[in-house]
Structures are given as C-alpha cells and as structure tokens.
C-alpha cells in the first residue's frame, strides 16, 4: 500500500475553491488530464454513491464513485472502479481548510492504493504530479481566469483581516473591451543579456487592430529559441520586447476584419512575432491553430513548436526513410523526445545521445534503439561501432559547439548534418572543403522559413496533431513555472537539467 499526500495554498476564499471541487462532475472543466466527464444514470452530482465516467486527454476511460461528501468539513472522498492503469484499491480524498490569515485556502489531496511493485514509482509520480499537482495548477488558473471577468467584490474579506501571506499571489483584475487600450502582465526584455533580464512588468496592451485577435493565454511554451531572442543571437526581439513564440489560450476579442475565429475559440500558435510571455496579447490570426477538444492547452503549448519543428526536420529538411540510421542529440529534451519517437515510427534506426543515465532511461523508454551517454563515451566512435563503420545517414544536432565536430565524424558517406540549434555555443568556422572527404551536406534550417505562411505551416500542424492522436508521439507533461519565474525556466533550460518541455503559467 502506498500513500500519496499533496497539499498547497490557493489564493482564493474557501467557498470559491469548494464550489469548484465539490462538483463531482466538473473535472473536465479544469483538470488537464480529463477531457470529458459525465455522471452515470443521471444521478445528482452530490448524491453519495454517484459514479462519474471520465474520458482522459490521452483517450483512456475511467470510472470513479463518490464515497463521502461533507459541506461541513469541505471534504470529498471517492474510489476508482475502473481505470486504464493498475491503481488497485485506489481511494482518494480531498479536503479544504480556510487560511484566515489572508483569506486563502489550504487544499490537501491524498490517496492510498496498491500498485504492482515494478510500477510503483511511476504510478506514485503520475498521481502526485499528473493528477494532484496538475489539478492544483489548473484550479489556480481557473480562478485567475475568473477573476479577470468577475467583479472583485465577489470576494468579501472574512472576520480577521490581516495582510496577505507573502506566499500568495496578488491578482490583477482588469476589464477587457475590444478596441480599447488596456494593460497586461508580461515578461519584458529591456536589453539583451542573461536570464535576469526577464522581468515581470505591467505593460500596455494596444487597442485591437481590425485584422487582429486578442488572446488570453492559458499556457505558454518555453523554447530554446526564446533564449536566442533574449541574448540577441536572433533579432526576432528588439528590446524592449516580450519574448516567446508559443502558447495556447482562448480568443477574447476579434477585430472586424478577421474571419474564421470567434470569441471563446481555443487556439494555439508557434510562430513569430514574439510576445507570448504575457497574460494577453494581440496578434494577427493567420498562423493561429484551432485546438480540437482532444488536444489539451498544456500539450499544445508544450508541444506545438517542437512538434511542427520535428515534422519539418523529419519530413522536409531531411526525408527520413525506413532503414535510415538517424543520430539524435539531446534526445531527452523537448524536441529530442519527439524526434526519437517519430523517427522510430518512420522505420529508422535511432541512435540517441544524452548527458546522463537518468535521461538515457527516458530515451530508452521512448524507443531509441541505442542510447549513448556522451559525457562518458565518444559518441562518434560509438556510432561507428554500432553501425559497423558505416555511420549515420542523418544527424539532428541542436547542441552546437560541443557536438558539431563529432556529428560530422559520425556521418556516413553522403550523410546529412542538420544543425538546428547551438545550445552549447556557436559551432565556429569550418572549411567546407573537408566535407568532400565524405560528400557531406549541412543544413542550418530556420523555423520561420518552414512555417511563416498558413500554407507552409498547416501540413506540419496537421501531421503533428495526427501523430499525437495516433499515439505515434507523446508529449510528456511539461515542467511548469509561474510566468513571473520565467528567468528560472531559462536557467534550468540552459543548464541542461531539464527533460521534456517547459511551460509558463500566466
């Protein structure tokens, strides 16, 4: 029997939080893992014994039964009846307590279950992070979204009025009218430099142009290209400017010249101009993508740019074919994980490199045929050994300086080095005469050149979403940071400590 216990503080009065949580049929409105919920047999949602039927964002189904509900103690208990995972004997309860000092809410979510021993850690992590912690963030976001549209006097202070605890996040309440100037919280880069240049500011949001829509972001993607914008390596951002090229959200207002989009539409984008690190923004809708119900915001924000990039890297920059030998660096990173899964699906032999044993395990699970820990072993030699001296047909290298020479050495005759980033620094100057020894091709693709019109972008988006739906690729739950802590996200990304995608929550 394992026990999981997670708790947090939500910066809202207990009645508001309880109103959300006591609805046994409401998870599909806020929890990212749940795409659909209904109560079986039309029972009332607060009838103890009611059974709810969930369809998960990944397509799985489960049934849970309400065991206890107390408006007095703000407590709710339920058990799992059927699930796609072996969470045997899963009984969970959540309870709220008021934090009178600041009028906030303590929320604890706990459970007990019997996992099979070999899946214990994985399932505990799933419940802890994928269900409970994800639920905390989702309710926080839901309340924040509501606070934008509901008047502030909905929150009456309680008996003991004392200053807010410093752990809590102050809310902004603003009104939004199309065509009217307003402000938004955003991360502003006032000059090129390190992560410390990412500062949260209240900035003006100009009136909506006729050919623009206004988007309220729900989740913002963090990509290495944002680092290049911050440092000035790419001139996509001119200081003072807001970085970020990927986000998911909801359309809040539509200019009169826009067609095909309406207020309330769920959309995502992965394109310039920069400006995603903000609660809200205006932008032209040409490169916006409609999200269908089976694509959660978080997956779109964490995966769209990387998925589109993976699509053109594997289908356009180089067309990966059955039997190809594909070398993928930084394979545990956000885009690396997609490349590994997708290249394998395309029938290639995948050789992945990673910086640590932990990352090696992740990449093995994704289906890489061979994984090389490049801090321990010369990867070019390893590739030659693994391929019987032939080398790789294509190398996908976004690491740059540390790996570029090795990638060239690991290629087969007529091999193709796709250098699509330089996380470890610029690759320096190379004499292309040396490439003749094996007739090598080098590509240095730029995301914009493959995605800057709806015609170029649409096939990659369609192919990526289809790959998600069919389970060809999976986007793992991203690591979340508050928008205000964007600098931490950049530090972690640049230190190569992270695996998978990073997102910011406005």
């Amino acid at each position, binding site marked *: 029997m394992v026990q999981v216990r997670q*708790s*947090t*503080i939500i910066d809202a009065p207990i009645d508001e939080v309880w109103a959300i949580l006591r609805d046994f049929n409401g998870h599909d409105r806020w929890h990212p893992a749940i795409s659909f919920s209904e109560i079986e047999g039309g029972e009332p949602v607060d009838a103890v014994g009611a059974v709810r039927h969930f369809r998960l964002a990944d397509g799985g189904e489960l049934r849970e039964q309400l065991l206890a509900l107390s408006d007095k103690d703000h407590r709710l208990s339920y058990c799992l009846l059927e699930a796609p995972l072996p969470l045997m004997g899963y009984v969970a309860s959540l309870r709220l307590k008021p934090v*009178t*000092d*600041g009028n906030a809410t303590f929320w604890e979510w706990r459970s007990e279950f019997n996992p099979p021993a070999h899946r214990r850690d994985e399932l505990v992590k799933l419940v802890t992070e994928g269900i409970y912690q994800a639920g905390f963030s989702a309710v926080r976001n839901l309340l924040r979204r509501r606070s934008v549209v509901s008047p502030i006097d909905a929150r009456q202070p309680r008996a003991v009025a004392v200053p807010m605890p410093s752990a809590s996040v102050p809310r902004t309440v603003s009104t939004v009218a199309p065509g009217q100037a307003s402000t938004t919280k955003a991360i502003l880069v006032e000059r090129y430099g390190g992560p410390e240049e990412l500062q949260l500011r209240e900035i003006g949001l100009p009136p909506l142009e006729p050919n623009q829509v206004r988007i309220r972001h729900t989740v913002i993607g963090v990509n290495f290209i944002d680092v290049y914008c911050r440092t000035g390596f790419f001139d996509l951002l001119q200081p003072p400017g807001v970085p970020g090229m990927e986000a998911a959200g909801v359309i809040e207002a539509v200019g009169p010249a826009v067609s095909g989009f309406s207020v309330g539409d769920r959309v995502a984008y992965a394109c310039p101009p920069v400006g995603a690190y903000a609660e809200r923004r205006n932008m032209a809708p040409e490169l916006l993508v409609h999200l269908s119900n089976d694509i959660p915001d978080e997956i779109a924000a964490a995966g769209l740019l990387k998925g589109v990039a993976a699509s053109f890297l594997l289908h356009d920059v180089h067309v990966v074919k059955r039997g190809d030998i594909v070398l993928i660096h930084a394979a545990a990173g956000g885009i690396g994980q997609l490349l590994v899964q997708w290249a394998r699906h395309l029938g290639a032999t995948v050789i992945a490199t990673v910086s640590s044993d932990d990352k090696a395990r992740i990449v093995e699970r994704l289906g890489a045929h061979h994984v090389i820990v490049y801090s321990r072993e010369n990867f070019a030699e390893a590739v030659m050994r693994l391929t019987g001296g032939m080398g790789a047909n294509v190398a996908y290298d976004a690491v740059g300086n540390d790996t570029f020479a090795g990638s060239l050495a690991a290629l087969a005759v007529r091999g193709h080095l796709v250098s699509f980033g330089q996380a470890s620094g610029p690759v320096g100057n190379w004499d292309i005469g040396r490439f003749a020894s094996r007739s090598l091709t080098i590509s240095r693709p730029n995301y914009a050149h493959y995605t800057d019109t709806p015609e170029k972008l649409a096939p990659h988006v369609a192919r990526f979403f289809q790959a998600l739906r069919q389970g060809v690729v999976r986007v793992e739950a991203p690591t979340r940071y508050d928008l205000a802590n964007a600098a931490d996200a950049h530090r972690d990304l640049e230190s190569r400590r992270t695996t998978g995608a990073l997102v910011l929550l406005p």
Partner: protein
Amino acid sequence: MTKVYVSSVIPAPAAEVWKLVRNFNGLPGWAPFVAESRIEQNAQADQIGCIRSFTLKDGGRIRERLLALSDYDLSCSYAILESPMAVENYVATLSLTPITDGNLTLAEWQAEFDCAADREAALMHQIGNGVFQTALTALKHRFGR
C-alpha cells in the same frame, strides 16, 4: 459554546515549526505577549496533564493544563484553568499540517469556550486576533517572512 478559528501559513517545514511549538513550556520563546512560563509540580513539559503557569507582559497570569500532545498529528490541546479572561470550559488546539507545495506549514489554532453573551464579540476578537493571530504572525516572522 463560542468557537474561534485562526490559521496561517508558516514559511518553514512542519517538523521545524513543530520542534518549537511542541514545547508546552516554551511560549516565552516565541509568543510575543508571554513574559515567563514554568511547569507546575516539577512535571515534564510533554507529560499529559501537566500544568503550565505563565505570566503575560501586561502582568496577567494564566494556568493551562495539557490535554493532548501528538507528535504524529503535530497537534497540542489544552484547557484554561485560570485566567484574567472571563471564560469557562475553554479548550484550545494548536495543530500543524505540512503543505507539500513549497514545503511550508499550515498552522491552525482553535478554541471553544463559554462566556457571557455581551462579552462574546470582544473575547472572540481578543483570543482570535490578540492571542492566536499575534502569535502565528510572530512565528511567520521568526521563520523568515
């Protein structure tokens, strides 16, 4: 029966906060209104039934009996035997709950008592604000915020 409930987020792990507040004789170390404290009859401070006798900085004297102490639940209950406040059947509980998100602590302090109807509002304020919240705020500052 009148009830008072106050809760606060303390910016430190529960085990650390508990180390400080479990000492039934330790109020002068963190509650700003307590001048000195002793345990009567030479008893141990974690002996259930022991009585603490403490003086307030304003000169008042209070005697309280330890009713329950749980290192498992991180909670401590006690009853007032004597005090300058005109309360009867006063039982209070101070309890801690870990907040895993950020490794913080929820501190809850609640009391139930009987009193004259016309004194109820003043006593609720005095106990909820003047005693419990004041002490919890001192705990918050002590642990850094």
